[in-house]
């Protein structure tokens, strides 16, 4: 199995994540779609590491995982804070800055 097919799978997963971000309204589902896109990028990194024959791609994927974990913690806390004040987890609701 050539690493090329892994990269193509990563592209497909990234596209699915993009559809999720563009189409879904629930903030948590949008957030999970972003996680899917980060994971797709990680899969591409791992496949590239194997293609190039050095481990730096895996190290970068590890850093992506750490940053994604930090991002999830802060993002979910923001969602909870917004839910407390607006009683809604829909991304169409927070329109305070609109008018």
């Amino acid at each position, binding site marked *: *199995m*050539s*690493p*090329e097919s892994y*990269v*193509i*799978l990563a*592209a*497909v*997963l*990234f*596209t699915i*994540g*993009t*559809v*999720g971000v*563009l*189409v*879904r*309204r*629930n903030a948590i*589902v949008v957030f*999970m*779609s972003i*996680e*899917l896109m980060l*994971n797709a990028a990680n*899969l591409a990194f*791992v*496949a590239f590491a*194997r*293609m*190039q*024959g*050095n*481990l730096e791609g*895996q*190290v970068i*994927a*590890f850093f992506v*995982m*750490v*940053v*994604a*974990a*930090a991002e999830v*913690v*802060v993002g*979910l*806390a*923001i*969602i*909870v*804070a917004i*839910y*407390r004040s607006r009683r*809604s*987890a*829909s991304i*169409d609701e927070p329109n305070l800055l609109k008018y």
Partner: protein
Amino acid sequence: MTEAGPSAAEAAVFWVCAVLAVTGGLGLILSRRAVHSALWVALTMISLAVLYLANAAPFLGMVQIIVYTGAVMMLFLFVLMVVGVDSSDSLVETLRGQRVVGILLAVGFGILLVLAIGTALSGVPAVGLDAANAEYGGNVEGIARLLFGEYLLAFEIVAGLLITAALGALVLAHRERWQPRRTQRQLSEERVRSGDQMVPLPAPGVYARHNAVDTPALLPDGSVAEISVPGPLRARGDLRPVDAAAVAETEVLASGRAALGPADHPVADDPGTSPGEPR
């Protein structure tokens, strides 16, 4: 045939896990309830972990399982519990045609991406990680060598980022109490003054055949007491339908009680008597 064995096995692993991962991704964007989406994403994460293992990255595969399926997805599920399981998507489109345009753009982007990758990478020889993994005695040792050597500064900055994120989550999730805590006396006085529900809510109906909390209690006239079912179940519309046999039994009991009329001796104190039987 020594070469065909591992590569055929890897192809099998790739196709099974690729199909599972794409299924999980599609389930994420197609399920109506956020909890189902979270479970589909967990499936995708696990298949990606297996794909990392197949790609000579055992350390990353384990980290993927521990960090993503173990920590991140469970955090998502906890937040779903806080935010409310019943918060499904609204179907009202605030921007007209946004859904169609979004899907079209994303599919076009995906086709572009796959075609570009296919043409750019076709025929590029794969070096393989066997030499790089063997250099320091294994995959974990090689990654440790890079992390604590070349990437030490980035590693320490990332550690600072993690601590900052934990503090930020504490600050964001913290709720300042603006008014003093209400005592039990004040709460009960408020409840009596508002007058809608002074006594505790009725318990869910428990029949001989169901003892789950989604079974509503029956009022004496055989109608359903909706407040006896917990609120989240009511919001999701998960009331168990009342079976006719139970209602008929209730009616028999009620008519038996009515036929008794003002009894000379109390029936409730007599366990041996069937209440439906007229005397």
